C-alpha cells in the first residue's frame, strides 16, 4: 500500500496535525470574535430600530393628542351647541385616520342639566361608516371609566389602559383623554380619541428585524397594548407573561419597562438565547424588541461553515502536497538505506547516491562515505591481525607437535620393565617433561617441571630434556647429571627460570634405585605387597637456581613387581572451581586401591589422569599435567 506509515506519511500527518490545531484555534477565535461583533451590532441595530419606531409611534400619538387638543378649543367655544359638539367629534375621527372614535363627555348635570351628555362619533368596525350617538347611559356609565376619571381628577391628559369598549367602538382600544376646564380651572368635560389596538398591533408587528423576532408594547401599568403573538390584549400583563417563562430576567425586563427604563438584556426561552432592547415612550408606555441570537448569528454561522469546508479542503490539499514534497525530499534517504543495506551485505564499495543539496542529507552522505572507508580500513587491519594470529597459532601448533615429538614414545614393555607416560599441556606448548633411556642394564628416567608455562618454559623444557637424555646415554650418575644440567641452566639465566627435576636410575638386574630429587614432588613407590608411600628424598635445589650447587643422590632397593608413579604438580595441584586441590593424600588413596595396584603402566597413567580430570570437572586446567608410571 503506497499510503504506508512511511516517514513522509508520518511527517505529513504531523504537519497536518499542527496546521489543523492552528486552523481550529484561528477559526475559534474568528468565530467567537465575529459572534461578539455581530451580537453587538445586532443589539445596536435593534436599539436603533426601537428608537425609530418609538419616535414614529410617539409622532402618531402626538398627532392624536394635538387633534384632540385642537378639538378641545372648539368644544370649549361651542359648549352649548349639541349639534356642533357632535360635529366636533365627527371631525376628530375624520381628520385623523388613526382615531377610530371620539367623545366629549360632560360632567353630570353640566350640559342642559342632563346626567349623561357625551356626543360620540366612531367608525363602524364592520362598514367603516362614520356614526354618531349618545355615549352615556345607565348601562354605560362613563363616570366610572378610567378614561374619564383619571383626567377628571388630575386635570391632566391621560392615555388609558387598553380596554374593550363595550358601549362604544366594540373593540380593544386605548383612549386619549383631554380635560376641558372652565376659567376657574375646574374640569367640566373630557374630550377623547380612541385608538384601535388592532391598528397599533399591525403597525408594531411590522417591526421585525429578524425572522423570529417580535415587538411588544405595554402600557404604563404593564398591560399589553400589542404583542407579537395572540396575547389576551387588555388583560394579560408583562408580569403574567414573565411568570410563564423560567428565566427570571424576563420579569426583570418587565419591571424595568414598567419603571420607564431603557436598556438591553439577554434571556433564555427554552434552549434559545434571546435578547430584548426596550425603551419608554413619552406617554408612559414602553416598547421592547425581542430577537433570537439564532437568527442574528445565522449568517455568520453559514460563513463559519463555509470557512470550515474551505479549511478542510485546504488541509487535504496541503496534506497531499506535503506528502509528495516530503517524499521527494526524503527520496535520497531511501537511496541511502539501499546503499547501507548493500554495505551491510558486504559490498563495502557500494555506490552512494549523489547529493547536490548542502544540508543534513549531505552530512549523511559524508558520514556513510566515511563509514565505508573506515570499514575497509578496519577490515584490512582485522585481516592482517587475523592472519598474524593464524600464523602464530600455526607456529604454536607446529611447536606443540615438535615438543610432543621430543618426548620418547616407544615405551619399553617387557619382562624387565614396562613404562608409560603422558603430558597434557595447559597451553599449546608446555614446560613439563619426562624422559627415559636404557643404557646397558640401567633404566634412566626423569620427570621435570619448568617454572612457568608457554613458549619460555618450552625452550627450557627442550634443553633440559635433551641434557637428561644425553647425560644418561653417557652413563653418568644421577647426581652428576643433575649437577651438570643445573650448571648449564643456571648460566645465563636472566629470566630466572628453574626446573624441578626428579632423576632416577634403576639397575634392572639388582633392582636397585639410585635417585636424585632436585626440588620436585616426591614420587610414589608401590611395592607389590605393601602400602604405597611417598619416597622421601634429600631436598636438593631446583635446577637452574644456584650454579655450583652440589646435588646429592640416594639409593633404594626395590623388589620385582614394584611400581613407581612420577608426576608433576599439575596433578596434585589440579583444582576444582572452589579452589580445592586434588592433593597428595587423594593421590595416595587412589593408588592404594587394590584394583589400581593390578593395573599395568599404561592403565595406571590413564586411571590417574581420569581421576584428576573427574576431580577438576569443568574447571580450566591451569598447569601442565605429566604422569609417568614404571613397573619393574
Amino acid at each position, binding site marked *: 500500500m503506497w499510503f504506508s506509515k512511511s516517514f513522509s506519511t508520518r511527517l505529513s500527518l504531523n504537519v497536518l496535525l499542527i496546521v489543523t490545531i492552528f486552523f481550529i484555534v484561528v477559526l475559534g477565535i474568528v468565530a467567537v470574535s465575529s459572534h461578539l461583533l455581530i451580537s453587538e451590532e445586532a443589539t445596536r441595530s435593534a436599539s436603533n430600530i426601537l428608537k425609530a419606531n418609538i419616535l414614529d409611534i410617539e409622532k402618531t400619538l402626538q398627532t392624536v393628542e394635538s387633534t384632540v387638543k385642537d378639538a378641545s378649543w372648539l368644544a370649549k367655544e361651542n359648549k352649548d351647541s349639541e349639534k356642533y359638539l357632535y360635529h366636533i367629534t365627527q371631525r376628530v375621527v375624520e381628520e385623523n385616520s388613526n382615531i377610530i372614535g371620539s367623545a366629549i363627555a360632560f360632567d353630570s348635570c353640566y350640559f342642559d342639566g342632563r346626567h349623561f351628555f357625551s356626543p360620540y362619533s366612531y367608525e363602524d368596525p364592520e362598514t367603516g361608516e362614520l356614526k354618531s350617538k349618545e355615549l352615556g347611559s345607565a348601562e354605560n356609565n362613563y363616570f366610572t371609566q378610567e378614561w374619564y376619571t383619571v383626567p377628571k381628577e388630575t386635570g391632566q391628559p391621560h392615555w388609558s389602559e387598553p380596554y374593550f369598549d363595550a358601549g362604544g367602538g366594540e373593540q380593544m382600544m386605548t383612549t386619549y383623554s383631554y380635560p376641558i376646564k372652565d376659567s376657574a380651572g375646574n374640569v367640566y368635560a373630557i374630550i377623547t380619541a380612541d385608538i384601535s389596538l388592532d391598528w397599533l398591533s399591525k403597525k408594531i408587528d411590522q417591526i421585525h428585524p429578524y425572522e423570529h423576532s417580535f415587538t411588544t408594547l405595554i402600557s404604563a401599568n404593564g398591560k399589553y397594548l400589542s404583542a407579537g403573538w395572540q396575547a389576551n390584549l387588555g388583560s394579560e400583563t408583562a408580569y403574567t407573561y414573565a411568570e410563564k417563562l423560567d428565566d427570571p430576567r424576563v420579569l426583570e425586563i418587565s419591571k424595568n419597562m414598567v419603571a420607564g427604563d431603557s436598556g438591553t438584556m439577554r434571556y433564555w426561552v427554552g434552549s434559545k438565547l434571546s435578547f430584548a432592547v426596550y425603551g419608554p415612550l413619552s406617554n408612559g408606555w414602553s416598547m421592547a424588541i425581542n430577537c433570537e441570537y439564532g437568527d442574528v448569528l445565522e449568517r455568520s454561522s453559514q460563513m463559519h461553515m463555509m470557512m470550515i469546508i474551505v479549511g478542510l479542503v485546504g488541509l487535504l490539499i496541503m496534506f497531499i502536497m506535503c506528502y509528495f514534497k516530503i517524499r521527494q525530499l526524503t527520496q535520497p534517504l531511501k537511496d541511502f538505506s539501499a546503499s547501507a543495506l548493500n554495505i551491510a551485505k558486504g559490498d563495502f564499495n557500494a555506490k552512494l547516491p549523489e547529493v547536490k543539496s548542502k544540508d543534513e542529507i549531505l552530512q549523511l552522505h559524508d558520514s556513510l562515505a566515511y563509514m565505508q572507508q573506515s570499514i575497509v580500513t578496519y577490515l584490512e587491519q582485522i585481516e592482517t591481525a587475523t592472519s598474524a594470529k593464524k600464523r602464530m597459532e600455526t607456529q604454536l601448533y607446529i611447536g606443540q607437535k615438535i615438543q610432543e615429538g621430543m618426548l620418547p614414545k616407544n615405551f619399553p614393555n617387557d619382562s624387565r620393565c614396562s613404562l608409560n607416560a603422558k603430558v597434557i599441556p595447559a597451553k599449546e606448548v608446555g614446560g613439563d617433561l619426562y624422559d627415559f633411556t636404557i643404557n646397558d642394564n640401567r633404566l634412566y628416567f626423569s620427570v621435570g617441571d619448568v*617454572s*612457568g608455562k608457554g613458549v619460555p618454559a618450552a625452550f627450557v623444557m627442550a634443553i633440559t630434556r635433551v641434557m637428561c637424555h644425553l647425560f644418561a646415554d653417557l652413563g653418568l650418575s644421577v647426581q652428576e647429571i643433575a649437577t651438570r644440567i643445573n650448571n648449564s641452566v643456571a648460566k645465563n639465566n636472566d629470566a630466572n627460570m*628453574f626446573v624441578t627435576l626428579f632423576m632416577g636410575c634403576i639397575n634392572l638386574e639388582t633392582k636397585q634405585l639410585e635417585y636424585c630429587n632436585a*626440588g620436585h*614432588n616426591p614420587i610414589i613407590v608401590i611395592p607389590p605387597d605393601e602400602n604405597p608411600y611417598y619416597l622421601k628424598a634429600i*631436598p636438593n635445589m*631446583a635446577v637452574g*637456581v644456584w650454579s655450583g650447587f652440589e646435588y646429592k643422590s640416594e639409593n633404594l632397593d626395590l623388589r620385582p613387581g614394584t611400581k613407581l608413579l612420577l608426576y608433576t*604438580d599439575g596433578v596434585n595441584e589440579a583444582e576444582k572451581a572452589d579452589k580445592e586441590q586434588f592433593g597428595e593424600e587423594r593421590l595416595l588413596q587412589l593408588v592404594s586401591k587394590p584394583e589400581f595396584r593390578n593395573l599395568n603402566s599404561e592403565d595406571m597413567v590413564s586411571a590417574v589422569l581420569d581421576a584428576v580430570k573427574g576431580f577438576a570437572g569443568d574447571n580450566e586446567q591451569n*598447569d601442565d599435567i605429566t604422569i609417568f608410571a614404571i613397573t619393574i
Partner: protein
Amino acid sequence: MEVKIEKIEDKTMVVLNGRLDTTNADKFQQDIAPLMQGDTPNIEIDCTDMEYTSSQGLRLFLMLQKSVTARKGNLVMRNMKPNVKEVFDITGFSNIIRII
C-alpha cells in the same frame, strides 16, 4: 593476591594475603617491582596470610632474592603456612631464601 608494602625506617615491610598462582603472577610481579630498586634493601615479607604459591610464584621470589643479593641487601620471609613452606623446602628454595 594482595600486596601491602610499607616502609618503616630502613626496613621495608611486605604483607602478602591470598593465593599466588598462574592467574595473578604477572600482577604480583608488577606489585613487587618497587622492591627491585634502591640500595642495600632490607625487606621482610610477612607470609601469615599467604595461602599458596605456584612455581611461577617461586620464580618471582627467586628473582627478588637475586636482586636483593646483588644490591647487598637482606630478605627475610616469615610466618609461612606449612603447605607453602613445604613447597619452598622441596624445591630447595629454603636454602637460598631466609625463612623464619
